[in-house]
């Protein structure tokens, strides 16, 4: 890794020794709380420069206030999302679609995909989500009084929902999870290898569905039309890859952080179990307190932002975990209040790229909590174990061993 120099146009006094990768609490930490660790930036200025704030060691501006993040993310003309995050791992530069397209092309593809994951559509998908949660939890309950929540529930649950959405068989679940793990958390050898495997898989699936259409997501994509034409192979791939990786880690992490909180806060756990109607609101608060994504944009032109000289090509970070702890936006931001109202958190981003899967993600989190609390008695973190949390481009939690003996 190279040490990143601070660009000449960045005033030295605006540089801070902070990043989601290298600051205290960001490395894998037993019993860590990376979200609380990043909240310390609110003692400082609304914008500063972080010399090492991406996986590949690039510097970014860091926007701390929720209102400013909203301004940046709503302005896709000035702050572009085309970074080729995925294809750059292959030395290529095609966009994931619609995430890495800017308006107006973005809107065309977004409109195509919105109905597939709209609130209305979720009513149809919901029974299968619930059925899947119940099956997994019943199996866990029948096999003992403890489990590794991430391995035994959060990942199999969220990944299988997503595989069904794509029309892929459950028995390949472990394979897909392995690819995703290598891609999102692997080293410089595993990451491009996983990226290549995923591209080959998506291309092959698209070819298959072109020849033999069935009633699934990929068939819809290969048959779809935008502006009176079929999608190109690269567009189909851009959509397929995005959908493949977007649904894998994030929802599982949200469920994990949520259950870890409830395991440590028995009163809140009891309350939600006794009054499950509170879970919908509580899930929003858990999303606020424990989001997993840092969104990065690229400036398309020079702009002075709150006194910071952002120049064309600069990276601008809008980390949901930072916006969600903004005291100007949330009263007592570091306190989890499961009854919090008017909770306009940033877990799914702002602006035209608002998480396309947010409605599905919300239902998975709510249903996962509902069914878990209904079927598993008072649970705690197992003695002599410690969940391991990590920061970085996707905040996560592992080794979450719950015990209800």
């Amino acid at each position, binding site marked *: 890794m190279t040490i990143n120099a601070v660009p000449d146009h960045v005033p030295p006094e605006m540089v801070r020794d902070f990043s989601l990768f290298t600051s205290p609490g960001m490395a894998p930490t037993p019993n860590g709380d990376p979200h609380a660790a990043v909240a310390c930036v609110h003692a400082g200025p609304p914008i500063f420069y972080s010399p090492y704030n991406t996986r590949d060691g690039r510097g970014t501006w860091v926007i701390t206030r929720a209102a400013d993040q*909203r301004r940046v993310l*709503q302005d896709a003309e000035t702050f572009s999302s085309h970074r080729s995050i995925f294809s750059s791992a292959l030395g290529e530069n095609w966009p994931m679609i619609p995430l890495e397209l800017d308006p107006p092309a973005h809107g065309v593809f977004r*409109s195509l995909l*919105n*109905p597939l994951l*709209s*609130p*209305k559509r979720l009513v149809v998908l919901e029974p299968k989500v619930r059925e899947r949660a119940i099956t997994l939890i019943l199996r866990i309950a029948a096999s003992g009084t403890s489990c590794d929540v991430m391995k035994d529930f959060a990942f199999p649950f969220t990944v299988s929902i997503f595989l069904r959405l794509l029309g892929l068989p459950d028995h390949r679940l472990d394979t897909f999870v392995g690819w995703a793990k290598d891609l999102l958390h692997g080293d410089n050898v595993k990451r491009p290898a996983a990226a290549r495997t995923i591209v080959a898989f998506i291309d092959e699936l698209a070819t298959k569905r072109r020849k033999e259409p069935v009633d699934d997501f990929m068939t819809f994509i290969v048959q779809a039309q935008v502006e009176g034409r079929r999608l190109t192979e690269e567009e189909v791939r851009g959509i397929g890859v995005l959908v493949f990786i977007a649904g894998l880690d994030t929802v599982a992490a949200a469920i994990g952080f949520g259950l870890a909180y409830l395991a440590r806060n028995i009163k809140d756990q009891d309350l939600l179990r006794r009054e499950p109607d509170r879970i*919908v609101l509580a899930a929003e608060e858990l999303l606020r307190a424990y989001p997993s994504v840092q969104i990065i944009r690229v400036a398309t032109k020079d702009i002075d932002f709150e006194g910071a000289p952002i120049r064309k090509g600069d990276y601008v970070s809008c980390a949901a975990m930072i916006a969600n702890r903004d005291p100007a936006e949330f009263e007592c931001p570091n306190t989890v209040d499961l009854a919090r*109202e*008017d*909770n*306009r*958190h*940033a877990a*799914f981003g*702002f*602006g*035209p790229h*608002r998480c396309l899967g*947010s*409605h599905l993600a919300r239902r998975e989190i709510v249903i996962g909590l509902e069914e878990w609390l209904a079927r598993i008695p008072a649970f705690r973190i197992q003695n002599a174990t410690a969940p391991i949390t990590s920061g970085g481009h996707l905040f996560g939690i592992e080794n979450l061993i719950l015990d209800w003996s």
Partner: protein
Amino acid sequence: MRIIVHKAKCQGHARCSAQAPDVFKLDDEGYILPGDIEVAEGEQLLASRGARSCPERALELDPTPAARVVPDAIEPRVWRA
């Protein structure tokens, strides 16, 4: 009470309709239908909660004079009478 809908700001979070589905109607993609919303009495509490839940600040509360005379969610101050 009236809710001013800034349609261009709506990004389909659908938090408003999660709070008050009868007040905030969405299209097939999950975005708010265009046009300001006249809120019926009895729906004002949920409607204002829905408006306040918009992450994009696309919904603006516009209390009409009538609504100001009889604000909902505030108990009559009997003790004063």
